[in-house]
């Protein structure tokens, strides 16, 4: 959305330029203020923003919006300030005259956080009546945030003209925020303001109400009851939020564990190199994105879709290779398998470190994976939502594959009774290799998703291996549904414990609970019954 918005602002700025060109220039406080931008001093810049925004000059909007986007150029030597348009053409900020080229010493006027807030506030009151709907909404929201008295007139003017309902509501809230802090507002106005904020009912409203300072007694009382009601509604929402966070954490756990549920759960191989398959998937994503960045930048939003099958193939192929070259000699010797796969995990880590370097690699988030939306009073981030859906899809496909395909049937047959399956003419060693490859491939797919929320570094896999084993053992070895339930149970339990106990203690508590649980039910939540258990 920001890119979108700034594009709109630019076009708006451009239309204002055209008006500005028609006006004759005159020297005065506006010009003096503009020259201050060239001082490269934050206090001077702040002063200049205030004067320029309040000047009523047609150039005010282009100057401030250019300042926000880093397009306001200043030459410290001549104290001249220029606005560079999105099209690369520049004008003199004080006069509006076009200039052919900028001096070499000109550089963008710098901002810090305090100035960014001033710029937002100034832009807010300047764009309250913009023809574009989302710009108006944005403007009303930034006035709400800054709630400076000077904006009141502009808000009132905009309110009188506004026809859109949501913008009108936002303006009303902005007005309420201003009035609440305005020292000479009447008691009635303030009580209305409190009621408006109570209706808004979110954290920002709460922040304004708690921070409003000295007020008449009736207002303080009304505010106190508003705070109470907002807090109790937020408390309910925070439970919903914890549940959502739990689902989201559960989906990450499930995604990381699902490949292990096959190699360890179904095949019984204690596969310590599982995490490295996840890492290889993440690095595959990195390589795909690198190629796309350099060759086909337009495809960036599809990079993950391309990476998923590739990661499956790469990790799966490595998995088959590992099974054929190492693991098949170690079936039935769990300790040796553990040591061999652990060693293998170190080898793979160091190999990746040598190839890609020890530092993190940047895997970008496509636009549909960034940002968040509000659902009631909770924030749902797109990346977590997509990962949850993706995990469920992977789970469903895997389940269907095991149930309805020939390979799935063979896999189940071999893991349930190897000798019987062999007697029925199934090439068990081929099935072993493919099963291990499948588990590794799915781990690779998990790596694609995890690259969106975690570091892509050689250590990526290590951080998931313990959790993955925990989920599989807790859910019940050999049962995919157990893995699903186990992952979500652990995720939700963790997220409800975390606010109470803190992240560190929460994690410890979960481990202790699992240990106790395993004492009671050594085979996990969903224990396999029958002969398979003995095998």
């Amino acid at each position, binding site marked *: 959305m920001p890119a979108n918005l700034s594009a709109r602002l630019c076009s708006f700025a451009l239309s204002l330029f055209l008006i500005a060109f028609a006006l004759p220039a005159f020297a005065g406080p506006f010009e003096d203020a503009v020259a201050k931008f060239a001082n490269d001093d934050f206090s001077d810049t702040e002063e200049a923003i205030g004067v320029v925004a309040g000047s009523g000059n047609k150039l005010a909007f282009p100057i401030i919006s250019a300042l926000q986007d880093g397009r306001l150029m200043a030459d410290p030597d001549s104290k001249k300030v220029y606005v560079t348009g999105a099209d690369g053409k520049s004008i003199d900020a004080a006069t509006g005259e076009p200039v052919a080229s900028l001096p070499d010493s000109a550089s963008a006027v710098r901002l810090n*956080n305090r100035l960014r807030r001033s710029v937002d506030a100034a832009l807010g009151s300047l764009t309250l009546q913009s023809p574009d709907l989302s710009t108006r909404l944005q403007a009303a929201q930034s006035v709400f945030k800054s709630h400076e008295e000077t904006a009141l007139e502009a808000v009132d003017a905009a309110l009188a003209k506004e026809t859109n309902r949501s913008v009108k509501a936002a303006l009303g809230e902005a007005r309420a925020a201003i009035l609440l802090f305005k020292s000479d507002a009447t008691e009635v106005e303030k009580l209305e303001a409190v009621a408006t904020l109570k209706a808004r009912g979110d954290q920002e409203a709460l922040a304004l109400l708690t921070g409003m300072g000295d007020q008449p007694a009736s207002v303080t009382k009304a505010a106190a009851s508003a705070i109470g009601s907002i807090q109790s509604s937020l408390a309910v929402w*925070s439970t919903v939020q914890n549940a959502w966070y739990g689902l989201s954490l559960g989906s990450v756990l499930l995604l990381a564990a699902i490949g292990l549920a096959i190699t360890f759960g179904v095949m019984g191989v204690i596969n310590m190199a599982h995490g490295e398959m996840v890492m290889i998937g993440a690095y595959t994503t990195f390589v795909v994105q690198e190629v796309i960045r350099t060759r086909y930048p337009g495809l960036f939003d599809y990079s993950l879709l391309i990476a998923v099958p590739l990661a499956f193939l790469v990790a799966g192929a490595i998995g088959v290779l590992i099974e054929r070259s190492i693991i098949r000699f170690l079936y039935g010797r769990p300790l040796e398998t553990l040591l061999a796969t652990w060693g293998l995990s170190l080898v793979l880590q160091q190999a990746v470190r040598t190839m890609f370097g020890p530092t993190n690699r940047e895997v970008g988030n496509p636009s549909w994976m*960034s940002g968040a939306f509000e659902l009631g009073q909770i924030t749902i*981030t797109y*990346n977590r939502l997509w990962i949850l859906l993706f995990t469920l899809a992977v789970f469903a496909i895997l389940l269907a594959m095991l149930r309805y395909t020939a390979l799935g049937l063979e896999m189940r047959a071999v893991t349930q009774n190897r000798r019987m399956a062999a007697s029925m003419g199934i090439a068990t060693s081929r099935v072993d290799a493919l099963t291990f490859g499948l588990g590794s491939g799915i781990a690779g797919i998990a790596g694609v998703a995890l690259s969106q929320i975690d*570091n892509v570094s050689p250590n990526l896999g290590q*951080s998931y291996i313990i959790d993955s084993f925990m989920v599989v053992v807790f859910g019940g070895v050999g049962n995919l549904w157990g893995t699903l339930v186990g992952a979500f149970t652990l995720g939700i339990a963790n997220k409800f414990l975390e606010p109470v106990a803190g*992240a*560190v203690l929460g*994690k410890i508590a979960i481990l202790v609970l699992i240990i106790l649980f395993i004492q009671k039910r050594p085979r996990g939540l969903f224990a396999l019954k029958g002969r398979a258990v003995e095998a």
Partner: protein
Amino acid sequence: MLSKSTHDIAASFSRRGVLAATAGLMLGLASFTGAKAADDTIKVGVLHSLSGTMAISETTLKDTILFLIDEQNKKGGVLGKKLEAVVVDPASNWPLFAEKARELITKDKVSVVFGCWTSVSRKSVLPVFKELNNILFYPVQYEGEESERNVFYTGAAPNQQAIPAVDYLMKEEKVKRWVLAGTDYVYPRTTNKILEAYLKSKGVAQEDIMINYTPFGHSDWQTIVADIKKFGSAGKKTAVVSTINGDANVPFYKELGNQGVKAKDIPVVAFSVGEEELAGIDTKPLVGHLAAWNYFQSIKTPANEKFIKDWQTYTKNPKRVTNDPMEAHVIGFAMWVKAVEKVKSTDPDKVIDALPGIEAPNLTGGVSKMLPNHHITKPVFIGEIKGNGQFDVVWKTPGLVAGDAWSKELDGSKDLIGDWVEKKCGNFNTKTNKCLGSGS
């Protein structure tokens, strides 16, 4: 060379005596060639993890020392001898740090060691350096509360990073409410203890301070970011002071960006996030978040521009970034070279005595000085993250700040000083006029 001469001599003996004779000779030769090698070159130990969790940060420092040695050798080395790097890999394994340190000093006979990143690795090698009396240059910002005879701390002490950062937020951003978020280990815990005491001394109430610890490599930041948002909605300007360690930062910042926590609303000032860490993230949503360091790559001085250019040429990577601990090694290395040249010897005792008072230019235009407490003077910069993964300096201390070995904010340490020049003591109590010694 050793094997060749052994072979020659061994060949002149009869076959039967060979075994015994070689064994005996080996012993004699080993010490002989050791001494001879020391005559040819001066050995410099490099003790940084090249594998494991910390490789991400420490590998660069190993390269930095190799680069500095290379540059020094081009200038003719030190005392007319070439420097020779001895690189070992302690593999992010704290006990292994001590073993490798011992190996460097006793087997390789190094004159000085540059190394360690985490405080726990430094604590692990301390006894070795004391026992074998060698020198360690430690280049990373740390929690303070230490001053050892054999260690020179070229990174920032808390008063050279954390305190100025908090001052900046109080003054410039008018922050009234504080979240102290850190990874659960000694550096964040001690730093936060110091900061909490400091904030309270500035009149910040207990309920306006939220302290939060997370495990190493924490990756699910949803709850904590939501908590920070909630804490920040109490009507007072809120900021986050982050001592979150390396790897956990990427998901933390991603979550901040996704949940829409903007720097202009709730700024995050970090003490462990530099150019290297940002290289792994898309920094556009993070613009405006802060970091406090004694060096930024973006600082424009002739010394820094030359350093960056030489470094990128040396590593053959025109995009390779530089960072604060690298600069600490640059300063430390220059100080060691100067001290060695001053006393015309690499003998640790002489060099340790010569180092306090030695000055070396830093890369940001000032001259850093080694203090009697084995810390150095450094400027402090506050930088804002820019869209290109670099920092824009928005504030700096007027001059250089002297590093305090012992924090003035904590009750237990405010009377202590480290002084290895006059008092010959790392924890001298100025109230009781006594040296506490190594027992405490």
